[in-house]
């Protein structure tokens, strides 16, 4: 039981005790000598007890938790009416019934008990109503309004205290005080923000509930007026001023609410339509986020437009584009009627304009004999494209106005936004797919780069390779041949991107295919192709598949580290930079050689030469792609062969890794802050004197 729970338990006990005291006083006052008690309490005591009881009941109600749950205004009114109001009315009804059935009851003890009980119920009802109205008045109210309400309560309390004084103010003063309070109450009754939150049905309910509350109030006023002259219970006017004032406020508030709700009833439809429009707009917006198809967005737009404009017939026409066919949606409109409307509009150059006609009986439309009175047209267009039009028809004339046109316009622009959003999403998904595929290509290409460099104690190799884009056109590879020989291939496919990457893979395939042992060889030398043979065969293979403007540059080195020599051929690739330890000199090997895929008929072998060289321990070979020597600085100067040569002159005595690091540090210094335009590959091979094997 809520009554027993703290902190209300004390107050509820006080309510009960004060009522019992009031009852006892009333009984002794009305029936002197009852139960052998001869003391008759003075009239003032009854007033004090009644005021005390009223104060305690109001305090009790004031401390109850907030009655309004969210925006459940109807629930609040229902609880008020079905709870204390019904109870009080039932009790009054019972009392009146008993008076009729038992004629001797008037003046009896039971009558006094009933009367006192009804006073208590009425006070309870007033308190409950007062605080229910407080919840409504203060709904979304400002802090100022809250303070005004407190002032109102204080004034009411002051009136209550006034009753306790033996002093009876002159009629004029009390009338003025009451008038001020009544005006205050009327002012507060104007606070009816909550009515706006009701829909049409709820407003009807609110009207009925408020009528009922006014009814209950009048029953009580009539009851007190009726019983007043018969008994000595109710004192002079100021005594009941408080109750009457409160009843006046409660009734007045209900009346105001009633009137406002009644005046609001015709607009409830508009509110609901607005609400429906907002919901449609939300649904339309949500469709985009769910990434639905354009057809669904059009359907959604079509349905929303028909619903909000209450159209009897409609047609959505989306024009055909290069990629898509035209798209039409009809609602209770034969296609031929749609096209006659469209061509009539086109005659007047109104084809793609916002337009409404509220009387189709005259003019050009009259001749069409359409079963409709009003027409509204809204184009769907963006700065990029004219999509099409929606045609809405109503049987009534004067059915559309500027308002409906502007709502439809909002819908149309939202729809176009959705469609273009969808197209953007689709486009970005396509781009994403291409990027994903490029990532795969990049990963595949990465797997083609040799991860493990050849290791032997006759030489050191250090490598560096970076692609400018996801997939590059540079390549290098190693292959061990029998007889302590090593084949080294480096090259560059013209162009960039996936095509170049594809040719890189092809070139690697050719390398591994051609560098196989020839089983028909008559002697050791013929078992593997010499570099010029390899280039001729590669040119032949590539000539059949490279596009006309594409070519490949490559150099193939076959190092025989058993005999301390190498042979290489340069097919249009960058010159080999070399440090000769015997001469202590750095120079480029100047050999002729034509790139692969440039001439596609016989005769390539005339353009390629082999170069033989016997190396010495300490010699350094630097092979690279044009991304190194053509790298540019901020002034657009190229790094160049000369600077590369200088770098090797400064660092030939280091080991291969450090020579590479020395060159790269200088290159990065040179190109600092500049974007990378081309793939860069750099291999440094340093020959060493033969290290005797361990244990030999």
């Amino acid at each position: 039981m809520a009554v027993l729970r703290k902190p209300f338990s004390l107050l509820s006990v006080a309510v009960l005790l004060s009522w019992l005291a009031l009852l006892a006083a009333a009984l002794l006052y009305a029936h002197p000598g009852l139960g052998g008690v001869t003391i008759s309490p003075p009239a003032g005591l009854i007033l004090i007890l009644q005021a005390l009881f009223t104060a305690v009941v109001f305090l009790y109600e004031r401390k109850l938790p907030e009655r309004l749950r969210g925006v459940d205004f109807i629930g609040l009114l229902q609880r008020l009416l079905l709870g204390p109001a019904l109870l009080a009315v039932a009790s009054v009804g019972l009392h009146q019934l008993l008076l009729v059935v038992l004629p001797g009851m008037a003046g009896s003890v039971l009558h006094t008990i009933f009367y006192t009980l009804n006073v208590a119920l009425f006070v309870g009802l007033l308190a409950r109503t007062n605080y229910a109205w407080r919840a409504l008045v203060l709904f979304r109210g400002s802090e100022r309004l809250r303070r005004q309400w407190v002032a109102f309560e204080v004034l009411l309390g002051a009136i209550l205290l006034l009753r306790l004084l033996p002093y009876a103010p002159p009629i004029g003063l009390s009338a003025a005080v009451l008038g001020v309070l009544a005006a205050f109450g009327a002012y507060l009754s104007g606070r009816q923000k909550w009515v706006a939150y009701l829909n049409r049905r709820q407003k009807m309910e609110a009207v009925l509930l408020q009528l009922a509350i006014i009814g209950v109030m009048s029953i009580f006023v009539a009851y007190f007026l009726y019983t007043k002259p018969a008994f000595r219970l109710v004192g002079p006017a100021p005594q009941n001023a408080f109750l009457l004032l409160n009843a006046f406020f409660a009734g007045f508030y209900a009346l105001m609410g009633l009137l406002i709700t009644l005046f609001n009833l015709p607009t409830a439809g508009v509110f609901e339509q607005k609400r429906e429009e907002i919901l449609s707009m939300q649904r339309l917006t949500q469709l985009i986020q769910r990434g639905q198809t354009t057809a669904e967005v059009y359907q959604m737009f079509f349905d929303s437009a028909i619903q909000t404009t209450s159209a009897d017939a409609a047609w959505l026409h989306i024009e055909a584009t290069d990629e898509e066919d035209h798209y039409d949606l009809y609602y209770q409109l034969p296609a031929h009627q749609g096209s006659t409307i469209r061509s009539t509009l086109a005659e007047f150059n109104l084809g793609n304009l916002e337009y409404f006609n509220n009387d189709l009986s005259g003019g050009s439309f009259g001749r069409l004999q359409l079963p409709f009175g009003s027409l509204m047209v809204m184009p769907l267009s963006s700065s990029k494209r004219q999509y099409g039009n929606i045609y809405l028809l109503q049987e009534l004339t004067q059915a559309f106005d500027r308002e409906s046109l502007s709502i439809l316009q909002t819908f149309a622009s939202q729809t176009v936004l959705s469609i273009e959003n969808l197209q953007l999403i689709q486009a970005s998904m396509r781009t994403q797919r291409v990027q994903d595929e490029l990532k795969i290509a990049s990963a595949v290409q990465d797997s083609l780069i040799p991860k493990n460099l050849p290791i032997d104690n006759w030489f050191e190799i250090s490598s560096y390779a970076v692609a400018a884009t996801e997939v590059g056109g540079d390549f290098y590879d190693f292959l061990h041949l029998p007889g302590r020989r090593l084949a080294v291939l480096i090259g560059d496919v013209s162009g960039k991107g996936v095509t170049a990457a594809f040719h890189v893979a092809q070139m690697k395939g050719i390398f591994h295919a051609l560098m196989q042992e020839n089983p028909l060889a008559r002697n050791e030398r013929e078992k593997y192709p010499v570099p010029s043979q390899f280039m001729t065969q590669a040119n032949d293979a590539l000539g059949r598949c490279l596009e006309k403007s594409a070519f490949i540059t490559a150099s193939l080195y076959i190092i025989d580290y058993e005999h301390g020599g190498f042979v290489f051929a340069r097919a249009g690739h960058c010159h080999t930079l070399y440090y000769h330890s015997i001469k202590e000199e750095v120079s480029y090997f100047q050999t002729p050689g034509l790139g692969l895929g440039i001439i596609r008929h016989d005769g390539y072998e005339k353009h390629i030469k082999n170069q033989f060289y016997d190396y010495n321990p300490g010699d350094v070979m630097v092979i690279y792609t044009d991304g190194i020597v053509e790298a540019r600085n901020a002034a657009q100067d190229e790094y160049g062969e000369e600077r590369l040569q200088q770098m090797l002159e400064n660092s030939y005595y280091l080991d291969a890794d450090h020579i590479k690091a020395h060159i790269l540090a200088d290159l990065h210094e040179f190109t600092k802050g500049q974007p990378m335009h081309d793939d860069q590959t750099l291999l440094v091979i340093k020959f060493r004197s033969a290290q005797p094997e361990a244990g030999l």
Partner: protein
Amino acid sequence: MKITQHATDTTLTLALNGELDASSSVLLDTELSKPEILRTQKVLIDCQQLNYISSAGLGVFISHLQTFQDANVKLVFFNMQEKVRNVFEILGLDSLMTIVPSEADATAV
């Protein structure tokens, strides 16, 4: 990249100005793809203002090489800057194409 044309009865001279890279090589390709070019006897390329040539630019000349040879049209380069000539030489194109020092030499070819 700017391409200036000068035509006589038998000769078409194209003066290249700027950098011949992937994007500008499309322009050059359009010029060299015109059918009437195969009716001239000589196409002279003035490389005086050509500061840079990328592999895409080289690819344009390479792709038309065979067609010109078949139609008996001579392709002659002149006034070539040293670093551009170096690019032609590294790729070995100097053995396939005629590169001469001056316009006078070019007309004499």
